[in-house]
C-alpha cells in the first residue's frame, strides 16, 4: 500500500477540483489507510467557504468533501495564509482580525504550509490537482 497526499491548487469551481475529490473518494473506498490528508492551497481554499450555495440540482462539492471527512479519517487542511487572503476564516481568526462573521465550513481545518511539508515527508505519493 502506498501512502498518498492530495495537494490541490485548482480553483474550487474547476473540473480539476472535482477530479481531486473523485481520486480522494476512490482511494478511501479502496483502503481508507492510504489517504490521511488533503491539502488545499491557493484558489482551492474557496472550497472551505461554508456559504457556497450551488443551485439545488447541482453537485455540492463542499458538502461532498464534508461527507468524506465524516465517513473516513481523512483530514482536510486549508492553508491559513491562502484562506485569509481569500476570505475564508474560522472563528478565532475572524475575531483576531476584527470581523464579526466567519465562514470556515465544518470538517475543514486551518493549517499552514509547514504542516503540509511535515506530512508529505511520510507519504509515498503527492498528487496535485
Amino acid at each position, binding site marked *: 500500500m502506498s501512502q498518498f497526499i492530495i495537494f490541490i491548487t485548482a480553483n474550487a469551481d474547476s473540473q480539476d477540483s472535482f477530479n481531486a475529490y473523485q481520486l480522494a473518494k476512490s482511494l478511501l473506498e479502496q483502503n481508507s489507510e492510504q489517504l490521511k490528508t488533503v491539502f488545499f492551497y*491557493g484558489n482551492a481554499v474557496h472550497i472551505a467557504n461554508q456559504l457556497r450555495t450551488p443551485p439545488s440540482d447541482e453537485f455540492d462539492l463542499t458538502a461532498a468533501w464534508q461527507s468524506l471527512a465524516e465517513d473516513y479519517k481523512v483530514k482536510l487542511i486549508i492553508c491559513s495564509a*491562502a484562506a485569509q*487572503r481569500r476570505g475564508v476564516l474560522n472563528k478565532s481568526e475572524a475575531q483576531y482580525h476584527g470581523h464579526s462573521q466567519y465562514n470556515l465550513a465544518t470538517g475543514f481545518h486551518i493549517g499552514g*504550509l*509547514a504542516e*503540509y511539508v*511535515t506530512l508529505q*515527508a511520510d507519504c509515498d505519493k503527492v498528487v496535485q490537482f
Partner: protein
Amino acid sequence: MIQHSHAIIFKQAPLQNQSGQDGLELALTLATFEQPVALFFTGAGVLQLSRNIQGELAGRKTYTDAFKSLELYDIDQIYVCESSLSEFALSGDQLTIEVDILDNQAWRDKLAEHDRALTF
C-alpha cells in the same frame, strides 16, 4: 524527517495571479524544513525572474524580490527553459538571479532527477 527532492515548476507570468507567490512560499517553507528544492521556470513562468518588475504599478506587492533571497535558504538549483526565454526575448543577464539555462533535453533530464513536482 524523510527528505524528498522537490521540483517547483513556475509556468505562469507574475502579477497575473497569485500563483508565483504561492509557489515561492512553498519552496521557501520546504527549504526551511531542509527538504531539497529546485525551481524550474518555463513558458510565461520565466517572466517571474525578469528584472524591473514593479508590482505596485499593478496594485500588487513586488513579491518577486523574494527570489533574490533564495540563496539565504540554500536554494541554488534554479533552472530556466532556454526556448521559453527566447520566446520572451530574454537572456540570462536580464534575470534577477543567476540561473542555469537548459535546453529541452537537459530540462527533461533534470526534472526526472526529482521525486516530487508541484506546478504553479
